[in-house]
């Protein structure tokens, strides 16, 4: 059951949405996929976007034997996954055992767009996962395109893996911060993900009690702008939250703007500053160690007061807490994917109706079934939340078993 058949059929998908999710599932299950009609109806930018191509390159560098084919216009993609090798020696390694991956300057997505799928692949890697994201496209803040900041990954996504028995040597180093550059494109940040706990199969989880919120932590960051913005963000967020959670502490991180090579014809050596701005990441923790997060960052165009953003972030956090469940919308897809990869046992998790009834989760359920995973069982519990039970398929570490 678990071992892939000799010639598994290529799975077919359409559209650019959920592309990353499907690529991750394809890599985990070892099934080839063909995605067609990627932005085929777009007149201005058909085909794969810069960040998607970059993610494919990243997949290529952390796997061995992957085969990627684009059509001429980039609207069709064929991906045959290889084994997830991680940062194995002699395999594209340059700096200190880390795979160096440069993001292009026209990347509009935050580094988390790359890091979250990496975190899903990393537990099933052969060697440790050690990836350094660098280059003129690394945005560490939250973005307008709906990505979370890297701080949220560090404080709200990585701890999720603990319940799956994946907890040793997980580290996300934020080496240089950057907000989104002009027009929301590019940044100059640098992040390193070290994920050094590989498992055969993730543990089966039973998360049923969401508990009560006992503390809120957060990080306010300013890059290249006055540190007073941090204080103003924090003050506004605390103004909303203090009444509910006395134990609220928000760190303040102030850094100068990163310098990236400026693309000027008459002065090729010139550097310019990019990624100015500020933002806030909030994480609420319950007494049963469930996490809810909220993220916001200043728009590249500016024009919003830190007070407004701070309040908005706090409201976003309250929304997420109100929705409840054992995983927020941000974390749900990661948790559910790991559950499906688990051993052949029933794992259970309580999720809010808003989370289960979101497009992402419904699509994930369908995609998982498409990849040969079992269907989900759902029932309502006493609090009006949904208990999702997933039988793992034990495909967990395909690569490890073969290699």
């Amino acid at each position: 059951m678990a071992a892939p058949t000799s010639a598994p059929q290529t799975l077919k998908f359409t559209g650019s949405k959920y592309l990353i999710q499907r690529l991750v599932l394809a890599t985990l299950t070892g099934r080839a996929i063909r995605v067609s009609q990627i932005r085929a109806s777009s007149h201005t930018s058909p085909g794969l976007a810069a960040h998607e191509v970059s993610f494919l390159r990243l997949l290529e560098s952390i796997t061995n034997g992957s085969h990627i084919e684009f059509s001429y216009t980039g609207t069709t993609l064929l991906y045959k996954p290889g084994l997830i090798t991680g940062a194995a020696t002699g395999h594209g390694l340059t700096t200190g055992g880390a795979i160096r991956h440069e993001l292009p300057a026209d990347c509009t997505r935050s580094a988390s767009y790359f890091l979250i799928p990496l975190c899903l692949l990393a537990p099933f890697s052969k060697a440790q996962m050690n990836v350094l994201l660098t280059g003129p496209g690394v945005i560490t803040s939250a973005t307008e395109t709906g990505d979370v900041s890297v701080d949220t990954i560090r404080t709200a996504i990585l701890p999720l893996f603990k319940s799956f028995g994946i907890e040793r040597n997980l580290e996300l180093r934020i080496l240089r911060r950057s907000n989104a550059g002009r027009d929301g494109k590019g940044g100059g940040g640098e992040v390193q993900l070290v994920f050094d706990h590989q498992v055969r199969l993730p543990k089966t989880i039973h998360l049923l009690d969401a508990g009560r919120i006992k503390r809120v932590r957060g990080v306010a960051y300013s890059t290249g702008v006055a540190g007073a913005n941090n204080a103003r963000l924090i003050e506004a967020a605390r103004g909303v939250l203090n009444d509910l959670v006395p134990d609220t502490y928000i760190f303040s991180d102030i850094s100068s703007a990163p310098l990236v090579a400026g693309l000027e014809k008459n002065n090729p050596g010139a550097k310019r500053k990019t990624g100015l701005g500020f933002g806030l990441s909030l994480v609420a923790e319950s007494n049963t160690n469930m996490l809810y997060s909220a993220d916001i960052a200043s728009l590249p165009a500016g024009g919003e007061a830190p007070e407004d953003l701070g309040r908005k972030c706090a409201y976003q956090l309250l929304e997420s807490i109100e929705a409840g469940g054992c995983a927020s919308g941000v974390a749900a897809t990661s948790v559910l994917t790991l559950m499906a990869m688990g051993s052949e046992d029933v794992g259970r998790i309580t999720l809010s109706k808003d989370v289960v009834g979101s497009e992402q989760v419904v699509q994930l359920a369908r995609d998982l079934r498409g990849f040969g995973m079992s269907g989900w069982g759902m029932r309502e519990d006493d609090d009006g939340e949904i208990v999702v039970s997933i039988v793992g398929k034990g495909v967990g570490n395909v690569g490890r078993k073969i290699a």
Partner: protein
Amino acid sequence: AQTLHGQSRPYRVTELAKMMYDDMLSTVEVISRWRGEVDGDATMGENEQDDGFFKRKEDTANSDEDRMVPKLDYESLEDKWTNDDNIKALRHRFASTRVTGANAE
């Protein structure tokens, strides 16, 4: 009772379980139906309009990309969370010092 049974109640888990794997429905339709926002005809009509120029433009701008943080209407959120009743309703989710129950730490 007739009216209750006549229209499907929104947010029923069994309904969602049924629709989740029904490939005839798109995910957007599944969710809007589950929430009881629109009946079947309305969603079909909307899809037909998709061919219009403006609709498509909007599609490429919004729904073609994956988002982690949903787009929220912050003005209505501000109204919601400055309302005392809503705050009170949420208070049971917090283990603050004021509600010392068995669950408080």
